[in-house]
């Protein structure tokens, strides 16, 4: 017999946390410390040798961070997680575990512009090669598979277009190719979509966005689904082969179905160094406690605003998967029945110039390069987040030059609509 299965909101408040053993503090304390005393030399050696559970040094792990990790792992239905300094740091750590110089991975073209940049330029200098595929043409994933392919990377809801990716179809391609599917679930959060339920082997997040939710802290996380067999075919030696830096330990053999998360910590984070600060872990953890409430409000507001924009005479098109009739509405109904998220794009009949004008006239929306804040945000992706792409690549990634991106906050929707209304009124 097991006890009753707690719901998502209960996990969002409780998973990973318990009263502090020494003080009884009920809120998770901020363990603002770099290091932790050992009981004796043997304890130190067994911690360093990965034989005991415990803390050594905050670059490898921290008690506040550990609560954050277990909480997100529980919300995503994973076996374990590892938090990092940012979403981008999480991506570097994941790929360092999987790729050797000369290896390849396949990525969906519809991605956050910063990820397109990271994959195209930074990763190239490590000898990791990206092959692009189009989520609107599922065969393009299968066509991109080669013997050097080591992973497939997609966003569940893509930034900036808010388009929904067919996770199960791409998971089937990954399974056939014998490689893990990595899903960036930043825009959806586990409240809207749980990629592991649809076949993802690894989930990554920028915690900076909806999970933290208040626009105050950078953070990233890697969630291990525990589903991938890293030792098969010897394609992932970081996990299957003896590790010289740990006297020959084999990570998968020792840690079983949470081996990937452990490898990311004891090899990736330890050696690359992008640790999250305990204070950021605390702020993000506090944010997650209200994730279900915030996501409900974000989605309700986004839908109302998208519907209002569709009816506005100055608006040419609204791309929001939550609208019936949208190209991605069927996928939204399947994967995100609670709401299609709160990031979407639209274009004005006046084109690029009218978009730039609109951004400058808004008074409540903030013009900045972020999403997933309590505050409503606006940006023109083609000249900012996606500016490094040429026009053809901008269109393919969902950032055509005439598009304006909104990230809808949790203010009163009437006030957001009034702000858009005054900004769209000619001559005011």
């Amino acid at each position: 017999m097991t006890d009753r299965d707690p719901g998502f909101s209960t996990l969002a408040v409780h998973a990973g946390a318990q009263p502090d053993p020494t003080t009884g503090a009920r809120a998770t304390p901020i363990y603002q410390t770099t290091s932790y005393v050992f009981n004796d030399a043997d304890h130190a050696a067994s911690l360093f040798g990965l034989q005991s559970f415990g803390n050594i040094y905050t670059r490898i792990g921290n008690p506040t961070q550990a609560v954050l990790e277990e909480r997100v792992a529980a919300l995503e239905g994973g076996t374990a997680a590892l938090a990092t300094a940012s979403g981008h740091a999480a991506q570097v750590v994941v790929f360092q575990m999987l790729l050797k110089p000369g290896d390849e991975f396949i990525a969906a073209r519809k991605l956050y512009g910063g990820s397109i940049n990271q994959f195209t330029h930074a990763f190239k200098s490590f000898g990791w090669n990206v092959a692009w595929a189009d989520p609107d043409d599922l065969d393009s994933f299968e066509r991109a598979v080669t013997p050097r392919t080591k992973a497939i990377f997609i966003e569940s809801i893509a930034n900036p277009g808010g388009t929904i990716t067919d996770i199960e179809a791409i998971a089937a391609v990954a399974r056939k190719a014998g490689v893990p599917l990595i899903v960036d679930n930043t825009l959806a959060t586990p409240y809207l979509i749980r990629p592991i339920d649809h076949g993802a082997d690894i989930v990554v997040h920028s915690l900076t966005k909806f999970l933290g939710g208040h626009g105050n802290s950078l953070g990233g996380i890697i969630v291990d689904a525990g589903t991938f067999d890293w030792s098969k075919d010897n394609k992932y030696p970081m996990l299957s082969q003896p590790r010289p830096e740990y006297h020959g330990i084999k990570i998968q053999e020792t840690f079983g179905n949470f081996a990937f998360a452990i490898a990311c910590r004891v090899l990736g984070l330890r050696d690359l160094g992008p640790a999250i600060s305990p204070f950021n872990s605390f702020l993000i953890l506090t944010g997650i406690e209200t994730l279900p409430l915030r996501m409900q409000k974000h989605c309700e507001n986004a839908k109302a605003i998208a519907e209002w924009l569709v009816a506005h005479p100055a608006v040419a098109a609204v791309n929001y998967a939550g609208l019936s009739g949208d190209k991605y509405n069927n996928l939204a109904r399947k994967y995100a029945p609670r709401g299609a998220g709160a990031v979407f794009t639209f274009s004005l009949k006046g084109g690029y110039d009218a978009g730039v004008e609109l951004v400058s006239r808004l008074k409540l929306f903030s013009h900045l390069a972020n999403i997933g804040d309590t505050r409503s945000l606006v940006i023109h992706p083609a000249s900012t987040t996606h500016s490094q792409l040429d026009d053809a690549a901008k269109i393919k990634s969902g950032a055509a030059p005439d598009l304006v991106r909104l990230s809808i906050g949790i203010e009163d929707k009437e006030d957001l609509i009034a702000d858009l209304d005054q900004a769209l009124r000619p001559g005011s």
Partner: protein
Amino acid sequence: MNHDSYDDDYIRGILNGVKSIAMVGASPVNVRPSYFAFKYLAQRGYDMIPVNPGHVGKSLLGKPFVASLRDIDRPVDMVDIFRNSSNIMPAVDEALKMTPLPKVIWMQLGARDDAAAEKAEAAGMKVVMNRCPKIEYGRLSSEISWMGVNSRTLSSKRAPMPTQGMRLSLGRTSLSGGATAAADRAAKNRTDPS
């Protein structure tokens, strides 16, 4: 008995109930998983007996090696088998000859032999396959949470600080296996070639 996933209460009952554990295939090499598990379980207060014919005359963390289960001079509650799936049956056969009969046969992470499990169960023993007792103890006590692992348990109680030799409470509220159902399914597909 379903051996694809286990109720937490089943594992909890075993780990709370047994006191002495004979570990077949225990290694003195301090990077082997059997060494990790042996050391951890000893630290948590279990009476550990290392079984490995290759190391008789030596001892593991102060406990002398014995060559086989036959050579143990005291009752053993659980036999923890650190061998490949293909070497499980002989160890189970040997365990079945012990008096008193051990209460539990535990096969390590990665090891599974359904025929051996059936034989042990027919003799009234409890069986766990493809699990690590260290990981399960760490999970149910939430000690493993230091590593960002999903313990699949919740508690609003203040836990004591663990010290050397201390048994930890395994009585936290369990979430049903659903939380990591994906990992359990994947493990089943791996062992079940159909």
